[in-house]
């Protein structure tokens, strides 16, 4: 697991109040209890704060679409951090 995944995993644990979350790239919202629409926004806000980045409205929406997973999220964060 690389440093970015590790950091994002910590954010997941904090937001969803579960220290047992182990992130994998194929993981989706269905695999994490509490990752509903509001949970998704809380996660985005926490990630923005942690990494000093901003997600566009369209990006936030796309991340919840079918076929999107933790891997997509990690990729987007990595791209935004440059």
């Amino acid at each position, binding site marked *: 697991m690389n440093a970015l995944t590790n950091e994002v995993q910590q954010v997941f644990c904090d937001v969803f109040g579960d220290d047992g979350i182990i992130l994998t790239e194929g993981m989706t919202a269905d695999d994490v209890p509490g990752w509903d629409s509001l949970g998704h*926004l809380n996660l985005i806000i926490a990630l923005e704060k942690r990494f000093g980045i901003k997600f566009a409205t369209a990006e936030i929406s796309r991340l919840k679409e079918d076929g999107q997973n933790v891997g997509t999220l990690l990729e987007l964060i990595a791209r935004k951090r440059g």
Partner: protein
Amino acid sequence: MNVCSIEWVVCLLLLSAVFFLIPGVRERQAFLCVCNVAFVATMIPNFAGWCALAGFLGIGFIAARVLLSRPRKWILVVYLVVLLAAFIIFKRYVFAKVLLPAALFRTIVATVGWSYMLFRQIQVVVDVYQGQIERLPLWNYLNFQLNIFGFVAGPIQRYEEFREHWKDLKPILSDAESVLRAYLRIFIGAIKMGLLGGFCFNSFTTCKNLLADPDRAAQMTHLHRVLLFLVIFYTYPIYIYLNFSGYCDMIIGGASLFGIRMPENFDRPYLSRNMIEYWTRWHRTLGFWIRDYVFTPLYKAIAGHWPQKAASLAFLCYFVAFFLAGVWHGSTWNFIIFGVLNGLGSSATKLWETFLVRKVGRPGLRSYLQNASVRAAAIFITVNYACLTIYFFRPELGLSYSMVKNIFAPHL
């Protein structure tokens, strides 16, 4: 031109039959552009109407082009304030009539399709500001806004989805069976709108006329009046569903014949288990738009300023978002009640879920959600609540009131 008409279907079938015989993408775009303008022209009453339309479209285009080169927040805020103020005045919202001089409303001209253009326009401008749209040619913008498929009543397509198909305009129906399916969908849409929807609407109108008339209502037994009310209460939501989903079937099926994939707008809405889920199944493109461009920025702003209070203020965000979704549908008091009920229903959903999480934890919530009896009860409550909201989905508040009053006391 009415979508559920012989003229529309004949035009659609004839034009789609020749569309892909046109050789190049630019020529196909020009052909669709002519169709768009001709269709819109059937709904613009006069020169003033064209000027109003041009002004409305112009505001969005100018704002987007300015934001492309200078993405400043204040420009976006000024644009949104001006646009929404203009929209409220042009749509003649009742609360605006209370606050502003009557003379103002006599001089303005509103045109068909404004409500949907508003959503498309805000989406484009916000996405430009946030760097999600990097180029916006006037040609694309105008055809996106005036797109014959979705101009009158949606579905609310996003610019990037439109551009994806518009840039190529190639067939998306890969074989003869797909084409037949598209024809079948148009046919089913026409049946839903014209036949089944028409039957429900006639039943509703007959019962409504009987119950709204105090003299006729007084001659009936109480049970008869209650039954009439129940027919009104349930047939109107069925009619609205058949009419709107049938319209969407005709639009989505028709667009696919021209190489444009429109987003789906319905997914068995009356099987939703709460009002938040309902708005992801009923008029989905509106529900998603409201989520993305009202709820998300509102909640993010609150969470940014008051992180400790964000969780409790989330209910307020749900209320505001779905209240606006309701109010957008019409300019009279009835639609304000419709908005309030939708706002209350979605906030209550989130409050209930939060209560359950506190009481039984996430694993408990999961088994609660998987319980078949709970699911059936939740669907029953939601469908009845949705019918209650749709009871106010008509312009006349007096009629909604008098029908309820006449059940109990028609003489009063």
